[in-house]
C-alpha cells in the first residue's frame, strides 16, 4: 500500500472515529452514564492516532512537511482541535460534558477538507518553499484550533447563560419566592467562581448534574482558549509578514488573506479588551467572540473559496 493510500485510509478512520466519539459524547451529556464517556475518550484518542498517522503518511507521500495546501491545513486543524480538547479540557480542567461539540467541529473541518479542498500529495510552488512556511503555517493552525475551540465554548456559554436566566426567572416568579430569589445576581460578571471547575459528572452535586457545565466554567474555558490562541495568532501573522517580505518584497500588502487575518486579530483584541472592562464582560464580550469566530472562518475558508488573492494555493 502506498503512503498516499494509507494517508487517505487513515483520514477516513479518523473521521469515523470522531463521528463515533461525538455520538458517544452527546450520549454522555444526555444520559450521564459513565461508560459513554469512557468509550468517547477511547474512540477520540483512536481518532487522534489515526489523524496523526494520516498526516505523517501524507508527509511521506509528498516528501515534505504535510501542511502546504488547504486540505492539509484542515486535516491538521481537526487533529489539533481534538488534541487541545482532550489535553486541556478533559485532562487539565476535568470538564467532561462538552466533547460532542468539539468533535462536531473537527468533523465539519474534515468534511470541508475532503469535499472542497482535496488534492493529491504534490510538490509545492517554490514561493512556498521556505522555513517561514513551517513556522507561519504551524502557528496559524495551532492558533486557529485554539481560537475555534474557544468559540465553541463561547457558543455553549451563551446557550447556558440563557437557560440559567430562564431557571432564575422561573425561580423568582415562584410563589412564595425561594430563599435564593433576591440573592442571585444574574448580571454578576462571570468571573472565577470557586468550585466552578469541579467535576460535573457523577461526582458533581445533584443540582449540577443535568446539561452543560455552569456558565462560569464555560466562559472561563472560552477565555482561556482565546487568551492562549491570541498571542500565537499574533506570532503567526508576524511570521507571515516576514515570509511575505522575503517572497513578495513587502511585509504587508492588504492581500485578502492578510486583511482577514488582521480583521480576526482586531476582533479578538476587542474581545480581550472587553473582557477586562466593566460593563462589557459576559454576554457582550461573548458576542464579540462570536463575531471573531465568523471572521476566523472567513479568514480560513471564505478567502480561499471566494476571494481572489495571493494565497490561492487552495485551488
Amino acid at each position, binding site marked *: 500500500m502506498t503512503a498516499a493510500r494509507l494517508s487517505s485510509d487513515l483520514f477516513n478512520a479518523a473521521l469515523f472515529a470522531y463521528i463515533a466519539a461525538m455520538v458517544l459524547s452527546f450520549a454522555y451529556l444526555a444520559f450521564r452514564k459513565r461508560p459513554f464517556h469512557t468509550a468517547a475518550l477511547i474512540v477520540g484518542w483512536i481518532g487522534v492516532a489515526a489523524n496523526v498517522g494520516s498526516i505523517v503518511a501524507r508527509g511521506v507521500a509528498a516528501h515534505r512537511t504535510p501542511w502546504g495546501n488547504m486540505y492539509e491545513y484542515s486535516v491538521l486543524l481537526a487533529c489539533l482541535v481534538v488534541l487541545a480538547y482532550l489535553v486541556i479540557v478533559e485532562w487539565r480542567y476535568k470538564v467532561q460534558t462538552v466533547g460532542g461539540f468539539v468533535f462536531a467541529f473537527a468533523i465539519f473541518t474534515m468534511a470541508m477538507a475532503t469535499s472542497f479542498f482535496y488534492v493529491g500529495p504534490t510538490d509545492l510552488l517554490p514561493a512556498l518553499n521556505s522555513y517561514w512556511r513551517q513556522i507561519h503555517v504551524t502557528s496559524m493552525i495551532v492558533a486557529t484550533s485554539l481560537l475555534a475551540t474557544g468559540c465553541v465554548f463561547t457558543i455553549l456559554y451563551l446557550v447556558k447563560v440563557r437557560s440559567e436566566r430562564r431557571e432564575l426567572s422561573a425561580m423568582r416568579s415562584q410563589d412564595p419566592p425561594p430563599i435564593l430569589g433576591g440573592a442571585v445576581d444574574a448580571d454578576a460578571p462571570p468571573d472565577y467562581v470557586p468550585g466552578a471547575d469541579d467535576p460535573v459528572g457523577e461526582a458533581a452535586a445533584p443540582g449540577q448534574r443535568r446539561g452543560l457545565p455552569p456558565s462560569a466554567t464555560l466562559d472561563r474555558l472560552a477565555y482561556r482558549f482565546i487568551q492562549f490562541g491570541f498571542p500565537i495568532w499574533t506570532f503567526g501573522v508576524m511570521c507571515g509578514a516576514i515570509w511575505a517580505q522575503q517572497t513578495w518584497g513587502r511585509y504587508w500588502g492588504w492581500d485578502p488573506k492578510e486583511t482577514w487575518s488582521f480583521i480576526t486579530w482586531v476582533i479578538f483584541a476587542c474581545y480581550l479588551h472587553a473582557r477586562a472592562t466593566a460593563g*462589557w464582560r459576559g454576554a457582550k464580550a461573548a458576542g464579540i467572540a462570536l463575531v471573531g469566530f465568523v471572521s476566523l472562518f472567513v479568514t480560513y475558508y471564505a478567502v480561499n473559496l471566494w476571494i481572489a488573492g495571493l494565497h490561492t494555493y487552495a485551488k
Partner: protein
Amino acid sequence: MSSPASRLTLRQSVALVWRTLRSMRTALVLLGLLALASAVGSLLPQIPNSPERVSAYLVDHPFWGELFLRGGFFDVFGSWWFALVTALLFISLVACLIPRSRAMLRTIRQRPVQAKELEALPHFASFAVDGEPEVATARARSVLRRRMYRVAVAPDGRGVAAEKGALRETGSLTFHWAFLLLLIAVIVGKGTGYTGHATIVEGQTWTDAAFNYDGDLRTGRFSSGQHTGAGIHLISFQDAFRTSGIPMDFTSEVELLDPDGTPVRRDDVRINHPVLFDGLRIFQYGFGWAPVVTVRDRTTTLSDGPVVMVQDAGPDGNQLAAPGEGFVKLPTLRPQYAIQLELIPDSTAFIQSLMTGVPQPMTQVRAPFMRYTVWKGVLTDPSLSGLDTRFMRKVSTGIVGRGWTVDVARGCVISSGSGSGLPTGLARTTRCPAGGPAPALTLSFPELRRYSRLQISKDTTVPYVLGAAILILLGLVAAMYSSRRKVWVRAEAREEGTVLQVGGFALQRKDRFEEEFPKLVAELRAATGGDRPAREPAEAGAR
C-alpha cells in the same frame, strides 16, 4: 463669552471629549470600525492590488462603481477615512497610555504597603515558629525574595509586604506603545520608499533610475524622488522544474554595480532569497524569453538586440505553455514597418501540444523558432508591448529558426545555418532563389536569451517594523501570562511563642493562586522552623 459659566462649559466639553476618547468603549468602537473598513477593502477590488478588476467593476456597475470610487472604497487602505479611524484609534491609545504609564512608574517606585488584619484576606494561614519575630520576618522576607516578590519590611521589623506581577502592566504598556512605534515605522518606511519592477536581459545592465522601471514604479508620499543609481548586471537566469512541470527554483545570477559602474560583488537572487544592495532589496519576480533579433535593410542595421517576449495564456491557462509575443518596430522606414514575433522556445513540446491538444509547458530550449508577421503602414501605438494594426497591412509571414536569416519582405529563408534541429514538418519553408537583387529587409535570430524580472524595493524602516513587532509580541505574552499577587507576612510574639501569619490574594488567575499559596506557606514554614507542632490549629488554603 468670558463669563465663568461658559468657560467652565468649554472646559467641561473638552474634558468630555478627552474622557470619551480615553474610554474603552471608544477604543472598542474604533477597533470595530477598523475591522469593518478592512472587510470592505477585502471584498471590493482595490486599485493598488488589482486595478483591472476595478475597471471591470466600473464598467459592470456604473452607478455603484462611481459612488464607491468617489468614496475611496476602491482604495480603502489609502483613503482619508481609513487614515482618520487609525489616527483616532492611536490618539485614544496615547490618551489612555500616558496616565497608565505614569501610574506604572509610580507603582514601580513605591514599596509594597503593609497591611493589617491578614485574617480577612482571601488566603490566610498562621502557624507557630521558632525564634524571635524579627528573625522569622527576615527569613520570610528571603523566601519571598527568592520567589521573585518585591518586598518591604515593616518599620517594626515584624512584617513583610510583598508583591509580584508588575510585568503584567509593563508588558501591556510595552505592547500598546510598540503599536505606536510600528505605525510610525510603517508610515516613514512606506512614505519615503519606493517599489517597482525591472526587466533585465541576460548580459544587460540595469540602473536604478525612475525611468528604468517597467512603468509601475510606486513612490511613497514623502519620497524625495531620488534613486540610488546602483546597477544590476544580469549574468544569467536559471530555472529548474520537476518532471511534473511544477517549478522548483528560479535564480538570477547578478553582478551588482556602484552608481559609477564599478562592480561590487556577485550574488544570486532567488525565490525567498532576496539580495540587499545599497539600500535596495532585490527580489526574483518573473522571467521570460528574449530572442536576439537583427533587422537590416540593404545598407544598414535597423534594429539589433534582444526582444523581451511576453507570455500570456489568459486567466486559466498555463503561462509556460503559451508562446512568447514581442515586436520589432521600425519607425524610421517610410512606410513604417513592424515585425510581430511569436516565439516557440521548445519545438518538441510544441509539437506534442499540437498532437495531443493539451498545452505542454515549454521550459527548455529545444530547436527554438519564431513565427513572424510583417506589417507595413503607419505606427500609431507608441507603447512597446502592443501593436495597433488598424493603419497597417500584412506583408508576409513565415518562420525563423535559431541561427537563420530570412528575407521578411518576400517571406523566404536566406540561410538556415547548420543543424538547427527544427522538425521537418515545421522547417518546410521556401528558400529564397539564389542570385538576384539584395533582399530589402532581412531578419536574423542568432541567439535566444532569457530575461529576469526583478522587484526592486527601497524601505528603510523594515528593521524598525520588525523590532516593534517583537516588542508587541513580548509585551503581549508578558501581559497575558504574568499575574499580580500580593502577600503579607506578620510575626507576632504571643505568650505561647512567635506566631507567623501569612495572608495573600491574587488579582488574576485566582485558581492558580489557590495551588500556589499552600506551597508558599509550606516553604515559609520550612524556612522559619514552623514545622514544630503548633498550639493552635494551623490552617491554609482558600476561604
